[in-house]
C-alpha cells in the first residue's frame, strides 16, 4: 500500500508538468487544446528512441520538450493563420501525431530495458529507492518550471499572453498581435507536455503509442482538483499566480493518489478514464447547476416575501 502511494506521488508530480502545460492553454488562454494527447506521446516516443540510441537521458528529455513545442506550434499555426477553431486544430495535430509517433518508434512500443535514465542515474547516485528518486527529480523539475512560468507570465510578453485569454479585443487595441501570443502559449504549453511525456517514459522505462490517450482529461481533472484545494486552503491567496501553478501540480498528485486508492480497492484500471471524465464533467456542471439553483431560490424567496407582505397588510386591515 505505502509503496503504491509513493509511486502515485511520483507519477503525479511527473504528470504534473503536463498539467502545467494544460493550465496555460485551458486557464490562461481559455482554449481546450486537444494536441496534448498527441504531444505527450510524442515526447515519450522521441525520448525512448533517443535513449535507446545511446543519447544522454537529460538531452533526450529536452528533445522531447522541443518536439512537443513543434507540435504545439503546428496547432497554433492552424488555429491562428488559418483560423481553424482551436479544438479542431488540436484534434488534427493529435491525429497526425499518432502516425508520426509510430514512424518515430517504428513499432507501437519501445522498452528502455537496461538503458540509463535520469531516474536510474539518480538512484545510483544517491542510493535511494527508485520511487523516492523519481519524486526528487520530479519536484526539482516542477519547481524550476513553476518559477520559470511565474517569471514568464510576469513579463511584458507573458502579460500579453494572459490578457489574450481574458480580452482579445483589448489586447489587439493595445497593439499586441494575438496570433503571436496564442502561438507562444500553445508552443510553450505543448513543450511542457512533451517534457512530461519524456519524463514519464524514462520513469516507467518504456514508451507506448497509446501513452497519451486521455491525457487532456487527466490534465483538466488535476486542474479542477487543484483549484478546489487552492480555494479551500487558508492563506492560498498569497502569491496568487504562483499558488495557482503549484496547485495544478498538487492537483495532479491528488489525482494519482485517488487513482491508486481506487485501484487498490479493486477497480479495473481501464475504468479510470471513465472516472476522470466524470470528475471533469461534474466540475464543469456544478457551477452551472449552482447558479440556476441560486436564481430559482432567489425567485422563490421573492414570491414568499410578496405573499407575506400581502398577508401582513391583510392582517392590518
Amino acid at each position, binding site marked *: 500500500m505505502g509503496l503504491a502511494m509513493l509511486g502515485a506521488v511520483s507519477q503525479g508530480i511527473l504528470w504534473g508538468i503536463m498539467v502545467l502545460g494544460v493550465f496555460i492553454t485551458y486557464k490562461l488562454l481559455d482554449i481546450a487544446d486537444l494536441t496534448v494527447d498527441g504531444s505527450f506521446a510524442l515526447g515519450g516516443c522521441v525520448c525512448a528512441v533517443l535513449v535507446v540510441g545511446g543519447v544522454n537521458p537529460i538531452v533526450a528529455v529536452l528533445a522531447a520538450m522541443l518536439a512537443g513545442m513543434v507540435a504545439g506550434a503546428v496547432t497554433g499555426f492552424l488555429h491562428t493563420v488559418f483560423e481553424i477553431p482551436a479544438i479542431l486544430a488540436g484534434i488534427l495535430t493529435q491525429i497526425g501525431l499518432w502516425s508520426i509517433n509510430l514512424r518515430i518508434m517504428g513499432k507501437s512500443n519501445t522498452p528502455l530495458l537496461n538503458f540509463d535514465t535520469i531516474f536510474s542515474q539518480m538512484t545510483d547516485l544517491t542510493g535511494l529507492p527508485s520511487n523516492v528518486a523519481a519524486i526528487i527529480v520530479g519536484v526539482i523539475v516542477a519547481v524550476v518550471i513553476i518559477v520559470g512560468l511565474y517569471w*514568464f507570465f*510576469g*513579463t*511584458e*510578453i*507573458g*502579460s*500579453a499572453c*494572459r*490578457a489574450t485569454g*481574458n*480580452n482579445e*479585443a*483589448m*489586447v*489587439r*487595441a*493595445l*497593439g*499586441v*498581435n*494575438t496570433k503571436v501570443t496564442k502561438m507562444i502559449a500553445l508552443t510553450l504549453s505543448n513543450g511542457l507536455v512533451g517534457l512530461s511525456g519524456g519524463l514519464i517514459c524514462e520513469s516507467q522505462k518504456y514508451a507506448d503509442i497509446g501513452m497519451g490517450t486521455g491525457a487532456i482529461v487527466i490534465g483538466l481533472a488535476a486542474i479542477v482538483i487543484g483549484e478546489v484545494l487552492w480555494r479551500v486552503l487558508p492563506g492560498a491567496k498569497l502569491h496568487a499566480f504562483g499558488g495557482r501553478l503549484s496547485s495544478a501540480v498538487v492537483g495532479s498528485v491528488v489525482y494519482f493518489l485517488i487513482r491508486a486508492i481506487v485501484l487498490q480497492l479493486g477497480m479495473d484500471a481501464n475504468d479510470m478514464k471513465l472516472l476522470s471524465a466524470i470528475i471533469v464533467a461534474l466540475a464543469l456542471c456544478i457551477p452551472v447547476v449552482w447558479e440556476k439553483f441560486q436564481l430559482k431560490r432567489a425567485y422563490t424567496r421573492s414570491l414568499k416575501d410578496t405573499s407575506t407582505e400581502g398577508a401582513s397588510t391583510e392582517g392590518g386591515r
Partner: protein
Amino acid sequence: MLTLSHVSKTFNAGTINEKRALIDCNLHLVPGDFVTIIGGNGAGKSTLMNMVAGVYPIDAGTITLDGVNISQLSEPARAKYLGRVFQDPMMGTAADMQIVENLAMAKRRGKTRTLAWGVTRVEKDEYAERLRALGLGLEKRLTSKVGLLSGGQRQALTLLMATLTKPKLLLLDEHTAALDPKTAAKVLDLTEQIVAEHQLTTLMVTHNMNDAIRMGNRLIMMHEGRIIYDIAGDEKCSLTVKDLLQKFEEVSGGELANDRMLLS
C-alpha cells in the same frame, strides 16, 4: 492629420445579409480637432471608427494618418497611433488582471513587448498619480482585479489607458452610453479634461445631441453609411438640438428621428 478618402465598407457582400455600412466617406481632420459624431442606429458610426482602427479590412478608399497610409495595416500595427474607448465597459479592460497590470499593458501600446518585467515599481507610482487625478479613489486599489470595478470606473480607467501613451488620435465610440446619467456626466468631464490637457485629436461618437453640440469644435452627422452633415466653428457654436432634429428629418425623408436621439 487624419484623412479618409472614398472609404467604403460592405458587410457580407454578395449574400442576402449584404449591408453597405459605409459608402464613399470622406473626412479630413486637422491636429487638435475634436469631432463629435451623431447618427441613428446602424448609421455606420461604429464602422467608421472600426475602419480607422483596422478592426475590419477596408473595401475601397484610403486612410492616412499624419501622412502615413494606414489603410492596409493590421489592427495591432495601428494601435501605436490610436487610443480607443468602446461602448461596452467590458471591452476596454482585462477583467481578471489587476488595475496596474492593465495600465502597464496600455503604457506599452505600440511598443515591442520584451521579456522585461511587465510592471516596474517606478510605473506604479506614476499610475497611482494618474489614477488620483480621476478622483475615483482607484489609486488605493492598484492591485484589485478590474472585474471588481463598476462600469463607470472601468470606462474611466479605459480612458486613462487610452491616453497613457499619447495617441495621435483618440477614438471614443459611445463610451458613456452604457452608464447611468450621473456617471456618464463624470466620464464626459474626464474626457474633456484629458483631451484638453494633452491636446488630443479626437473622434467621439455619441447618442446625446446636447453633448455633441456642447463638446468639441466640429460635428458630423451620419446616415445610412454616409457623412451627410459636417459643421464646425461659429456655426457649430450656434447649433441647437432643434436644428439637428430638423436636419435629421430632412435626410431621413420626414421620418421622425429615432426615439433614443429625441430623448437625449
